[in-house]
């Protein structure tokens, strides 16, 4: 059984630090910032940039980061008294919960190109949360 791939070439698989070389063909290309709003045919997926698209999502990202800072401070204080106390356990569990939520959002945006507000904003484009975020 031959070990070499039949097409003769070698393709690099990514290690955690290196991104994949080849790109998946995008379903729709075009700059989101300057896109004219029109009805998308069903089933067509937009390729969104790997950062927050809507203001609401950006706000959520920032809020989560702030919460992490706050809760870490809180947990450190609470645990000074007694590291084995219930309050200490709960405080660090909250830190974990919020850290995970922050990471989930980052992964959604980065790997999946999904802004969680996408479908909400399709229906309600005029709300403040659905303003397109511009860096």
């Amino acid at each position, binding site marked *: *059984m*031959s*070990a*070499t*791939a039949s097409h003769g070439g*070698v*393709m*690099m*698989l*990514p*290690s*955690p630090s290196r*991104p*994949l070389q080849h790109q998946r063909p995008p379903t729709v290309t075009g700059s989101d910032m300057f896109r004219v709003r029109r009805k998308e045919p069903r089933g067509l997926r937009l390729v969104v940039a790997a950062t927050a698209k809507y203001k609401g999502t950006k706000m*959520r990202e920032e*809020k*989560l*980061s702030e919460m*992490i*800072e*706050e*809760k*870490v*401070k809180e*947990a*450190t204080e609470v*645990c000074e008294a007694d*590291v084995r106390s*219930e*309050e*200490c*356990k*709960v*405080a*660090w*569990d*909250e*830190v*974990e*919960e*919020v*850290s*995970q*939520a*922050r*990471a*989930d959002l980052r*992964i*959604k945006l980065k*790997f999946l190109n*999904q802004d*969680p*507000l996408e*479908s*909400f904003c399709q*229906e309600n484009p005029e709300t403040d949360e659905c303003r397109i975020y511009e860096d």
Partner: protein
Amino acid sequence: MAVSTIYSTQALNSTHFFTSSSSSKQVFFYRRQNNRRFNTIITCAAQQTVVIGLAADSGCGKSTFMRRLTSVFGGAAEPPKGGNPDSNTLISDMTTVICLDDYHSLDRTGRKEKGVTALDPRANDFDLMYEQVKALKSGIAVEKPIYNHVTGLLDAPELIQPPKILVIEGLHPMFDERVRDLLDFSIYLDISNEVKFAWKIQRDMAERGHSLESIKASIEARKPDFEAFIDPQKQYADAVIEVLPTQLIPDDNEGKVLRVRLIMKEGVKYFSPVYLFDEGSTISWIPCGRKLTCSYPGIKFNYAPDSYFDHEVSVVEMDGQFDRLDELIYVESHLSNLSTKFYGEVTQQMLKHADFPGSNNGTGLFQTIVGLKIRDLYEQLIANKATAPAEAAKA
């Protein structure tokens, strides 16, 4: 969607009459001929949902395991459209993934007041979990609560339609015995402490609130509850994916190269464990050599029967990393019982998600294989349910 199977094509006439049993969705035809009764059973089987449990301490709805699993069935899993943007649920054509955090009985404030972590069973409503999983399994839609991880509150429920495959993912899928009995297959993702620490560093170090100390303290503080409530579930799992630091590099504490063990219970219905070369034997295999050149630190496989919490298991273990496509194909071609539909399917699935973490090591490989095993289990279960009513009773 109802599937009706017809076993007789004879026309109805006065010698035929039927009764229907609405609870079992079966229609019985009785035909009298020469004083002998012939019973023909026509069964309209309501869609039977296959339920998979996944125990993992890595949040819900985003885990790469879920993505790989749903991808094996085709289609991307997405949050329900038009609903709560903080919903944890993922829906694809065939599968619906429910996050068990949605069954928290206490929200963040409530837990703080009572002094319980999310890991504690007292923070979770197992009665509701059981009722709803049971309902979905029988083909009944449910209004499932939503636990909002951002606000820490319990939001208004969302309607969940019974899918073909229901995956319940979270901290306690196998904790409650009644829920456990509903599971057709269960998986436990067992991350060792060193690897957990390394992963959480990668996850959190970019956050300005965190430091090495805070990450460490958080893991330590959660350990007692984790060991008391979550860890014991692994004895019930049909498959355990154990993630450990590599043995190929001395003193590797970066957690980048991993040793991953796929522990598969023997004797589970519709589940045939993966093996290397010779089923039931003990094999140690380094694929790198004359036919295959690997870069440092290489790849090492082990396969052996073993005992795990008094159960007979088979264990396939991979230590190291894939660096090239041909390494992956080479390894795939030597593993048996993969439940693939064509040669190279594992490799293809891995490449589809090559940008996901774990794509170059045993975590991605075994998650993909478990995904294929679940597909195999699903197809066998469905085929079995379709042929079961084919026994026409003759009186």
